[in-house]
């Protein structure tokens, strides 16, 4: 990964930082920590909530004279030690190990396979025998050549996910998280970066406003473009959840991130390169496991060691505060990092770093008039010594004078009727924003006036609020995983939304045949169409069409079932109210209207069944006309109903067709649970509790029944293509059965607790996900073979509830035979935490399309005299091109001035002398006849710069000294065009910003 050369002027960018949040579930069994042979796990207990760099402690201003320039490098980063012991399993590792970590790298494919094999055998045998106590019917899944020999001597590897067969074989197999915004349940943790970020320097505000939104998301840090809402960059490298991100106060182009894996990383987020990794976890931390057992959290400060290498260990920890709240919202840093505030329950703690003074203020615990004084969040005023706290009863208190134990005082603002979820001060501190479950963003003007503004109808409760560093934008993060960007005048600007987190995904994962989008529950009563390619919501279809009221105890109607017809022209939805006994059911059929490019309601059927509808499917027949379209619903009222389209005879009717019930079938008064059409549509399989019935879809005769007691049928599906003679069923008591429809006999069965059974529409493959002893495993098989094609043990620790095959636009070329089943479609999973996951052979970086990367580069050109000049130059060139009648090649522009670009992207101090560059620069401004020569020149420059970078790495001090002169030489007469403040600014940034060199 070769880092882009940095632009000299790019440091003057503005960055809006936000953070996404991740609820941390984790962490680990402490026993495992101690046993782990790799010895790096102790760090996992560390939870860094906020990587605030206490710049003032070591900033040159404070540490005048007494500290050398080296000391400026030492930055204190307080982190939070997590004392909670989380029961749930560790998060799946989504990210591959950094290349330079030899410890975890599997040495050979063989070794890597072994632990996986162990898992398979262990589970298969253990699960099968105690349950049945007899030989399995059909061929067991164990004992296949795929699995290796058990090696019980080896301790269970916690990090077994490093050692997946795929990775060992091809090195390219990775699991790609789709979960960023999909896992909204975990939204409760994150870092609020802009809070203690410094106000922008005066010279910077003149530049174009914030463009980037940074968001911690899963194990990644995402960079969004504020203008296009696009994901520009995905920075991966952490081995566990990113718990906090924070802009480097010395250099707003750099970002600190902390993770559950016990490391703090420093990133150059423009280029997406990790500059440094500080390993905080250590043996020292292992001693603090004592703290982990209790329920207390500690705020500790970490001294970031200065060193040349990329991986550094920072083990100097000092506890700042004990017993702090568990959330980042409970901690805030005061003006210029002079103090830190933490709240917990009804206690507010303020710790002054310089005076080493700890003040504690308690509110009364008595709930007067229904008020609940518990703190919910805290922020500090950016310029004044004022602390704002939100409370569970909706009050906001503004604390002042808190350096006095007695004479502290606070004033109260009260609008929210329920808990204040988050607060944020504007950059100047004149406004305070607050949000809560009311889904209203409240803006409090300076506290002297009672004036407040509201931005209502934000859709869902506000979880986090963040301000951009120049104050022009603010963004709110909602419980349903949406980021809303709001103008400073409190106007809704745009929203970034991927997968909306709904309260409960009842509809299952359905693929829209038209757009290939995933369709599932979105906002309450809405169906969301989620584009997998762009990670964006395509649109949201209001199905229930009723106002949703956020209030506990109200019975609301929600969408429970969705089915698409094969071409996607028809959509059937079922909604029911939350009442358990007598649900109000509605079946709606929607027709896709080409004119409006949207679904319009065709038929509404009230109470299609007398009880809950359990399943619904269309007869998928591509080749046949509309007449063949049949909808089958199964209900707990022990019947299945067949719905067909009928021509509407009423001439006044709006629609030409409508749907009506054609056939009602039942079987021994059993509840109908599942239904499925065969591929050619001739057969319908309906499961009635323990029995599967097969019906002829023309005559509606019961053809045959299958039964594999004990246990109710959980899932059924027909085989496809060559395997269409098979019917697959999974039962409650852990059997996967395959019946042959021709012989009407059980072909094979396996003992597996299958929760999800998903056939690939484009191939014979069927994916089955089993859930056993707190881990999900994936099996892919063809019905005609009892042996699975692919087994992935320990897919994730969470229960996978739903899965879907999404057809690929074009089949992917897959080298490994094992993954051939992934060729035509991609498999997606949704876990019970509403994380969307997929299996992919592509690497992470490929997810971002080249165009968006290009966009990032384009955007990274600052508006400086340089860029103006460059723009003019380009513009002229383009014009000349058109004048000459040449076909304008897009690449032409890119190649036109590589020298200038290199010049801009390379830090001044690593550039060769100006006299050397001068000719190149001048040449680049000339209209080049041959593109090739320019490229060559560019290469040369790069080589030079690399060399220079290497040198400077060893001699930091000299570089610093040179700095002052080199830009002058480089810029030459250009400098005069920079205003004085800009120049000053540039110099300042240049002085600070050379730590990225370490990345070379």
């Amino acid at each position: 990964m070769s880092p882009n050369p940095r632009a000299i002027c790019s440091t003057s960018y503005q960055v809006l930082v936000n953070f996404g949040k991740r609820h941390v579930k984790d962490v680990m069994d402490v026993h495992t920590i101690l046993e782990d042979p790799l010895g790096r796990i102790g760090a996992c207990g560390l939870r860094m909530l906020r990587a605030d760099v206490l710049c003032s402690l070591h900033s040159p201003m404070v540490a005048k004279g007494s500290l050398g320039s080296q000391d400026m490098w030492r930055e204190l980063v307080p982190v939070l030690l997590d004392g909670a012991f989380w029961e749930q399993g560790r998060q799946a590792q989504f990210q591959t190990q950094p290349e330079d970590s030899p410890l975890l790298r599997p040495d050979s494919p063989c070794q890597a396979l072994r632990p996986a094999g162990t898992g398979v055998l262990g589970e298969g045998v253990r699960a099968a025998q105690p349950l049945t106590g007899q030989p399995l019917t059909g061929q067991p899944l164990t004992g296949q050549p795929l699995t290796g020999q058990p090696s019980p001597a080896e301790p269970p590897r916690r990090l077994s996910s490093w050692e997946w067969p795929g990775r060992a074989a091809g090195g390219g197999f990775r699991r790609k998280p789709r979960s960023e915004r999909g896992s909204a349940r975990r939204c409760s943790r994150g870092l609020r970066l802009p809070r203690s970020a410094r106000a922008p320097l005066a010279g910077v505000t003149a530049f174009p406003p914030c463009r980037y939104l940074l968001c911690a998301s899963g194990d990644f840090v995402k960079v969004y473009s504020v203008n296009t809402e696009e994901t520009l960059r995905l920075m991966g490298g952490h081995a566990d959840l990113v718990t906090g991100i924070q802009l480097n106060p010395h250099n707003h182009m750099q970002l600190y991130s902390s993770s559950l894996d016990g490391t703090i990383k420093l990133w150059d987020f423009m280029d997406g390169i990790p500059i440094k990794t500080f390993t905080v976890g250590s043996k020292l931390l292992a001693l603090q496991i004592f703290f982990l057992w209790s329920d207390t959290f500690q705020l500790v400060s970490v001294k970031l060691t200065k060193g040349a290498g990329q991986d550094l260990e920072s083990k100097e920890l000092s506890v700042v505060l004990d017993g702090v709240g568990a959330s980042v919202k409970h901690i805030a840093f005061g003006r210029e990092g002079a103090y830190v505030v933490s709240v917990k329950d009804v206690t507010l703690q303020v710790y002054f770093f310089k005076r080493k003074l700890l003040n504690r203020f308690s509110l009364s615990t008595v709930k007067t008039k229904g008020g609940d004084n518990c703190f919910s969040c805290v922020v500090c005023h950016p310029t004044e010594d004022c602390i704002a706290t939100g409370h569970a009863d909706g009050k906001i208190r503004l604390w002042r004078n808190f350096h006095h134990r007695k004479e502290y005082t606070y004033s109260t603002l009260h609008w929210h009727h329920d808990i204040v979820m988050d607060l944020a001060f504007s950059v100047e501190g004149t406004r305070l924003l607050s949000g809560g479950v009311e889904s209203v963003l409240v803006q409090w003007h300076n506290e002297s006036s009672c004036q407040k503004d509201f931005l209502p109808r934000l859709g869902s409760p506000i979880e986090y609020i963040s301000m951009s560093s120049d104050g022009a934008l603010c963004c709110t993060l909602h419980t349903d995983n949406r980021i809303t960007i709001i103008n400073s005048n409190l106007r809704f600007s745009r929203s970034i939304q991927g997968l909306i987190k709904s309260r409960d995904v009842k509809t299952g994962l359905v693929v829209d045949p038209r757009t290939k989008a995933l369709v599932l529950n979105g906002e309450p009563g809405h169906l969301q169409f989620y584009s997998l390619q762009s990670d964006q919501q395509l649109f949201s279809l209001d199905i229930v069409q009723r106002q949703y009221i956020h209030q506990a105890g109200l019975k609301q109607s929600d969408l429970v079932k969705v089915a698409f017809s094969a071409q996607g022209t028809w959509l059937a939805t079922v909604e029911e109210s939350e009442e358990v006994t007598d649900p109000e059911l509605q079946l709606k059929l929607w027709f896709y209207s080409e004119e409006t490019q949207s679904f319009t309601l065709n038929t509404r059927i009230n109470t299609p069944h007398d009880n809950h509808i359990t399943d619904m499917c269309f007869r998928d027949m591509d080749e046949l006309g509309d007449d063949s379209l049949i909808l089958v619903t199964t209900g707990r009222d022990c019947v299945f109903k067949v719905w067909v389209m009928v021509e509407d005879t009423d001439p006044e009717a709006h629609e030409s067709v409508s749907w009506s019930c054609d056939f009602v079938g039942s079987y021994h008064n059993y509840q109908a649970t599942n239904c499925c059409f065969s591929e050619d549509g001739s057969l319908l399989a309906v499961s009635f509790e323990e029995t599967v019935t097969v019906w002829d879809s023309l005559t509606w005769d019961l053809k045959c029944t299958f039964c594999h007691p004990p246990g109710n049928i959980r899932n059924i599906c027909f085989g496809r293509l060559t395997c269409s003679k098979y019917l697959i069923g999974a039962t409650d008591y852990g059997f996967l059965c395959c019946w042959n429809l021709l012989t009407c006999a059980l072909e094979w069965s396996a003992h597996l607790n299958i929760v999800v059974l998903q056939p690939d529409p484009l191939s014979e493959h069927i994916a089955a996900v089993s859930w056993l002893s707190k881990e999900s495993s994936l099996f892919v098989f063809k019905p005609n073979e009892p042996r699975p094609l692919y087994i992935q043990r320990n897919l994730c620790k969470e229960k996978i509830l739903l899965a879907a095959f999404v057809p690929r636009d074009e089949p992917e070329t897959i080298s490994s035979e094992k993954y051939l089943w992934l060729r035509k479609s991609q498999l997606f999973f949704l876990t019970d935490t509403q994380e969307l996951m997929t299996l992919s052979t592509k690497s992470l970086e490929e997810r971002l399309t080249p165009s968006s990367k290009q966009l990032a580069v384009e955007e990274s050109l600052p508006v400086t005299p340089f860029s103006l000049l460059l723009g003019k130059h380009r513009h002229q060139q383009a014009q000349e091109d058109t004048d000459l009648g040449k076909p304008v090649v897009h690449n032409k522009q890119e190649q036109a001035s590589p020298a200038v670009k290199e010049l801009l992207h390379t830090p001044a101090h690593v550039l060769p002398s100006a006299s050397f560059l001068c000719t190149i620069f001048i040449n680049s401004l000339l209209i080049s006849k041959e593109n090739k020569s320019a490229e060559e020149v560019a290469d040369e420059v790069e080589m030079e710069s690399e060399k220079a970078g290497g040198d400077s790495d060893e001699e930091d001090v000299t570089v610093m000294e040179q700095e002052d002169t080199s830009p002058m030489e480089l810029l030459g007469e250009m400098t005069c065009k920079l205003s004085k403040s800009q120049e000053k600014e540039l110099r300042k940034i240049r002085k600070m910003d050379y730590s990225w060199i370490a990345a070379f």
Partner: protein
Amino acid sequence: MGEFEVHRVRFFGLVPAGVRCLACHPRGARLALARTDGTVEVYNFAANYFQEKVIPGHEARSVESLCWAAGERLFGAGLGGDITEFDLCGLSAARGVDGGGGPIWSMVASGTGTQLAIGCEDGSVKIFQVVPGGGIQFERNLDRRKGRVLCLSWHRSGTYIVAGSIDFFRVIDVASGQTVQRIMVNHQVEKAKPECVVWAIALLSSGTVVSADSFGRVQFWDWEQGTLAESHTVSTSAALSLAVSEKEDSIVVGTSTGATYQLQLLPVKLGGLEKCWVRTKPFQFHSHDVRAVAHSSTALISGGLDAQLVIRPLMEKVQKKGYDAVLRKFTFPHRRLVSCARKARLLLFQFSQYLELWRLGSTEETGKDGEVLPPCRMPEHLVQLKSKGPEHIYCSCVSPCGTWVGYSTASRFQLYRVHCDGDGVSLRKVPKVPKLLPPAYQLQFSADSESLFVASARGSVHVFQLLEPGGCKHLHTLQPPSGCSEAVYLLAPSADGHWLAAVSGDWAIHIYNLKCFQHHCVVPAYSCAVSALAIHPSTNNLVIAYSDQQLFEFSIPEKQYTSWSRAVQSRGLHRTWLERDSPITHITFNPKNPAHILLHDTYLLCILDKSLPLPDDSTLLMNQSTLKQLPETARKRQLHAFKICKKFQPLLFMDLLDENCLVVVERPIMDFKTQLPLAVQQKKFGT
């Protein structure tokens, strides 16, 4: 502790007048308060905010503004156009000086206390000189502008006066008398609102002018530039009053919604020099307009039209937790407005301008504890006696036999003979009552109703002999041998007619022997105001309750404190008892059980059993309910001297009619709240 049949009287229709203005003594020892009916009260901070002095009002005298000047002198000015000095020793208003500018809306004393400035209806600001010997003298007029001057504030240095009017305020140079700045305050407000009344103003020593106006804003102005520095909208309705602390770092604002707010001058950055005003604590103690606020060094004081005086201590200024750290509300006066004729079962209620005589009802039923007995005869309003003239009543009393009623106003003392003939009651004025000047501050009939004791100025007590069928003779005037300048405000005759205890404003208790009309002794001085005292009928021990909640028992024959009293002092009273916030207003005894002392204040009724051990701080003071649940043997161990009943609230009067019959007079707050004018309507969330 014995059961009583209780006459629970709720027909005393007292409506206290609203608080109009407050004036805190510059040295913080006293608080003067004027009510809307012209009554002026003085509260003593040192004596636990005891309502030390009351000067009853006068129909023609309204007090819009009070100020302390020239040390301890209290001046008031009102819409009558007069400036009045109040004689705090003689408890009377001196003759007023005409301000000469129509109704006076505001008055302020200069920092030195030698000058008074008044703001008049005609827009003039006049300066009066406080003459050291007594009285005031017109000095000069300052620049007169149109518009009534509603509020004034004098710069500490005495060079400038700021005067608030409608829509504007102006700054006047005292030396030249010229207006040097005139600032409009309604410039930001849309035209729809008619006018912006500057209700209160303060000129800080830094030159900042703080104004509170009818739009609910508190604004800080730089008067030299004429610019608005800060504006705090504290209320949607008017901000009516404003007071600045001595250090000028805290301001209290009263609004017409009944809320008071504190604004504090706080450093923007900790340890930094830059400071800003921040609205901090809101308090909602009043239901009506807060017309007056004051800022003492340790407390915020507010008085509202709901007649409440609220003293809210600033916790950060209070050094230790204790009496000073308690929020206190005073609604009712700390003196007796009810007198009871025990034998005749009559109650006399004193209102500001009339008296009401009621006969108590009776019942023949008996019942258990807590039962309500149906009366067989309803209480009866016998007669209403209106006082003549514009003056309000100072005091009143009915004799124990119920045949004599006396009252006194500022200028006249009246004695009436009550004739009951069947159902009809008639009052006949006793002729030839000796003229009393100055008037009576307290009236007390002897137990046998044969003599009347009249507390008078200069520590003197007049003794009248009542003659049948309707006459009165001055017998003697008792005076402390050493002389005294202050008026007597409490009297306690002994049941056997032998002794009389009198308390004057200097808190000295003199005991006189009535047989020989001689001064008997002085109770050793105690540095607090006496709130109630009574002489035990059988032992002739004088029981004294001080406003700091201490109790003493003084044996008159032996001229020394009793051993029980010494025991109480050495042991100390229960902390909860000492932290109560209203003083004991009446003491009486149960003749059947000489060890019992019955006391009451506004919130509790207590029977003090001297035979039982005193409680210590670890035990529960109010243990009646817990005792009930205990078995007999355990109860014995838990018993202590204080039997407290909080059933009757607020309790204005309690007396023992006979051995097992009590009368209590309550005035439920809600009853008199309904008689107040409507408060500002406010939307309440969730309704």
